[in-house]
């Protein structure tokens, strides 16, 4: 199986803080990997560094291309869709404009996106800033799915959502994962169990554990790594 994402010895320093201290991880094509860890260990920074959104050193390869020095837009065009933490929808733009902005292929898959999120079809003229948190998350995920890109990078998709919406969104991501490589940061272990085949645990800006998702069932290990009872 080829490697879709290959990060090695990734270092990020922001404002004098050495946030990532040599992160290395791989995601095989078609695989879903969950990036776990306590708050502030560098999970979001790892995804932002992968996308080229923060200055970094080390090596980042995506779909067999060395993208370490590439700007974010070139990395994305390689086929990497990104759903950031806190959604980052453009609040002054309508839902339709948010989706239009994401179009990068000749035939964006609007039918597929509206099938997954029927509610968005009725809200294309509504300003994204007036949507609820759940609806904004739908826009953020829809934006990422529009081009049917082969790699999906998702940062805390369930954050701040009601349980019913978490369940619906997890269903969508599970459907997408059948055809897409995914690297997902997620605190909700039920979501991780549903989506991921493998987990990577960060602590103090470095990988401290990698293993199959079944490792989540090891209560002692989870308490040690995440400080939670799995």
């Amino acid at each position, binding site marked *: 199986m080829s490697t879709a994402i290959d990060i090695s010895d990734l270092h990020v320093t922001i404002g004098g803080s050495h946030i990532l201290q040599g992160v290395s991880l791989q995601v095989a094509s078609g695989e879903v990997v969950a990036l776990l860890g306590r708050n502030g260990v560098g999970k979001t920074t790892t995804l932002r560094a992968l996308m080229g959104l923060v200055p970094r050193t080390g090596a980042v390869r995506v779909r067999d291309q060395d993208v370490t020095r590439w700007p*974010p*837009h070139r990395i*994305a065009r390689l086929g990497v869709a*990104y759903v950031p933490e806190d959604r980052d929808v*453009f609040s002054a733009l309508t839902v339709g404009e948010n989706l*239009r902005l*994401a179009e990068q292929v000749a035939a964006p898959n609007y039918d597929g996106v509206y099938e997954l999120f029927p509610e968005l079809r009725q809200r294309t003229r509504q300003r994204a800033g007036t949507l609820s948190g759940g609806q904004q998350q739908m826009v953020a995920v829809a934006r990422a799915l529009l081009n049917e890109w082969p790699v999906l990078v998702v940062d805390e998709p369930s954050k701040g959502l009601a349980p019913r919406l978490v369940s619906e969104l997890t269903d969508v991501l599970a459907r997408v994962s059948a055809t897409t490589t995914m690297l997902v940061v997620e605190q909700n272990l039920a979501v991780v169990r549903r989506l991921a085949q493998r987990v990577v645990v960060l602590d103090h800006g470095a990988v401290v554990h990698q293993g199959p998702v079944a490792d989540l069932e090891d209560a002692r290990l989870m308490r040690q790594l995440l400080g939670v009872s799995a």
Partner: protein
Amino acid sequence: MTVLADLTFSAVALSAVYFLAASGLSLIYGLMDVLNFAHGLFMTLGAYAAWDLTTHLTTQLSAPLNFAVGVVAAILAGGLVAGLTELWLIRPLYGRPISQILITIGLDLAAVGLLLGGFGSNSLSMPVPLWLFEATHWGSLNLPNADFVALIAGVVVLVGLEWFLRRTRYGIIIRAGVENRDMVRALGIDVGRAFTLVFVLGGAMAGLAGLLNSVVFSGDLVSPLQGDGLLIFAFIVVVIGGLGSIRGSAVAALLVGVVQDFSNYYLGTHPGMAEIGNLSVVLLLAVVLEWRPRGLFGGTL
């Protein structure tokens, strides 16, 4: 009543020039966080390009056509110089605001110095159609034709910009970029192209503002420092309207033009009150900032 109507019309025409000068400045700051002190230079170069072409190259054309050539020359010169400025000087300095301010101030000083050396410090007279200095009589009103030209230009640019920002893909990119540049990049969009385009657009509008400022308010005269004088009011308009907001710039330009013209007319003839118009504008700025520190429309495009 007639005086009030004449005065209002004149103030709105002045506002149109302020809007043309400020809208590009506002877009450039809103999208790129660049405080562009060379914007006054784009205005000056627009006026000089129009003067040079209409005085030396196209004199055989009829006066209206010659003026139209001048308008196009001003727009192209402003846009071209602004685009080159972004590509050569600003692009290597993104994320370094102090360096950007210094280099744009330096560019302005150097270019104005070159203009002074090349053309002298005296104002130059631009050939314009005589009807620009005439007035249209409407009932008891005397409305200067030059004011009409400024007003039409301002409205056309406002409507055109609104259409561009709301209906075109680049417009959507620019509006999104004002809100969150990183996310636009992460969607696979080269924001650098949008940056250059915004500079070109801003420079083109500045060039037009420079020409209209010469024609409407300076008695067809072009001078090396005219853009810098206009730049101060453009900055005030941008701050009152809200950095990055085109609608804000339009409303703020109207406020500034009206306050300045009315103050000058009603108070400026009193002894020691010659600068009351400018002072009133600064007071307006202070009041708005006290009331709304981010400007009237801060945060929206």
